[in-house]
């Protein structure tokens, strides 16, 4: 008995030693990698220090000239908020378009990801072959950044939100598909077994054995993805895929300085609002699983 204990503690300390060695090794490796990569991208202090003031100049330029006495005057008078936001209606329409791009791509991506995730979860996949191929397929979908897909689809389908929606749907399918299959892999399979024992096939097993217990987590992940997609859908507009991003790209290029800040402020407000509501919703869903 003592022998076993001794052996065990020896093995244990050896394991710890080995792990410590690896930890030091990894930290050193990271350090070297940072040194190498910073020399490759020419990261040096003088460039940064000379660059930062220029950034400040740009920010100063895009800030609106607001006159505190004229803030609420009409849109003809320089220095008023309405003057700064003379294009407000257009922005709102474009923001709405961006919002819809995020909603639709999250929704479509959710459906595709959910369908595929049952094949790419190791514990419930109907067969090894579909597991392998669906997993690789999802890796490909999320491996390619959405901006690349957006450029491709803008080229193929023309400028506009459709290209953006397709691009984001593809990326969302890949990203959510992976998360969903990981949720499935943690599922308790007792009720699956009961349904199988009653003669229910794979589809009823997934529907009634797996889905009810994974649903709260899955919806929570989808909401998180929606928050990400709101941001992504503005960025994606830069390559012509519709929405407020496309307009922002335009005003930046034309040096309509005050409009740049007007749009950026609106985007920030939208993103914050959606993050807060969706975050609160996610909290409620996760709490709901405990009562």
């Amino acid at each position: 008995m003592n022998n076993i204990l001794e052996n065990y503690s020896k093995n244990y300390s050896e394991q710890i030693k080995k792990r410590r060695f690896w930890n030091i090794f990894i930290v050193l490796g990271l350090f070297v990698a940072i040194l190498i990569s910073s020399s490759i991208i020419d990261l040096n202090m003088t460039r940064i220090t000379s660059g930062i003031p220029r950034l400040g100049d740009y920010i100063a330029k895009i800030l609106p000239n607001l006159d505190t006495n004229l803030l609420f005057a009409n849109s003809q008078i320089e220095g008023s908020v309405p003057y700064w936001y003379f294009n407000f209606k257009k922005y709102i329409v474009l923001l709405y378009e961006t919002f819809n791009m995020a909603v639709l791509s999250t929704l479509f991506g959710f459906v595709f990801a959910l369908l595929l995730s049952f094949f790419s979860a190791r514990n419930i996949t109907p067969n090894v072959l579909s597991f392998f191929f669906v997993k690789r397929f999802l890796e490909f979908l999320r491996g390619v950044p959405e901006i690349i897909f957006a450029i491709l689809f803008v080229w193929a389908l023309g400028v506009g939100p459709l290209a953006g929606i397709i691009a984001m749907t593809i990326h969302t399918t890949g990203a959510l598909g992976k998360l969903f299959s990981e949720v499935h892999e943690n599922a308790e399979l007792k009720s699956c077994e009961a349904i199988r024992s009653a003669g229910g096939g794979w589809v009823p097993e997934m529907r009634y054995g797996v889905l009810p217990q994974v649903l709260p987590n899955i919806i929570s992940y989808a909401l998180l993805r929606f928050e990400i997609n709101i941001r992504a859908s503005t960025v994606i507009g830069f390559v012509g895929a519709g929405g407020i991003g496309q307009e922002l790209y335009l005003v930046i290029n034309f040096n309509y300085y005050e409009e740049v800040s007007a749009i950026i402020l609106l985007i920030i407000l939208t993103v914050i609002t959606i993050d807060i509501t969706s975050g609160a919703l996610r909290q409620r869903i996760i709490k709901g699983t405990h009562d």
Partner: protein
Amino acid sequence: MGSLQLNSLIKQFGKNTDGRIAVNGISLEVTQGEMVGIIGKSGAGKSTLLRMINRLVEPTSGSISFDGTDVTSLKGKALKKWRSECAMIFQQFHLIDRLDVLTNVLTGTLGRRYNILNLLKIFPKEEKINALKALHKLDLLGKALQRVETLSGGEQQRVAIARALMQKPKILLADEPISSLDPKNSKIVMDDIKKINNEEGITVICNLHSLEVAKQYSKRLIGLSEGKIVFDGPPENLTQELSQELYDLENE
């Protein structure tokens, strides 16, 4: 009519030759309407045996037949039909905790047929009536719309029995149905199983941890030890010696 036959059934887990043999050559016959209690120590192979009958576990060799039909070779639709006809209930109930009682009971029909509506929780009216009748029989009608996870253990096991009844089974396989219940609920559940056996003529094969309960509810006991049958007969024939061997775990 309705006779279940097992012929030299063997189940070995793991491929190598020293792999554990959970069921080691079991042959027996159970006639329609019998209530058989299977007893034996933990690890004796009781669960494996029941699961093989339902085909949740594939036998390594040997065969199972029901009314002359070879069950071991069934595939696809025929296999689903067989599983539907030999319902199972489990020690830990294996219900869908987050769904209501009625939907849980209705999932018992999914082995017979299902369509897109059933996947949207829409079931035919007569099935719903049948489900409510089953719940009534188990004195659970008042709980029909409650979430399963809000029910007591005894109630959950009776929901599982109602689900089994929805399969219109010829055989009910019960794998330690009362092991996670207190004595009072154990009695209710065992009485319900006995009632189903008596009134509907459904064959019951029931794994039990308690010899007392086994003796009380079945006229025929089968004792398993290390995957082999060491006793098969009425409880009166069980010697003190043998019952101690079968249940030494309990006396520890």
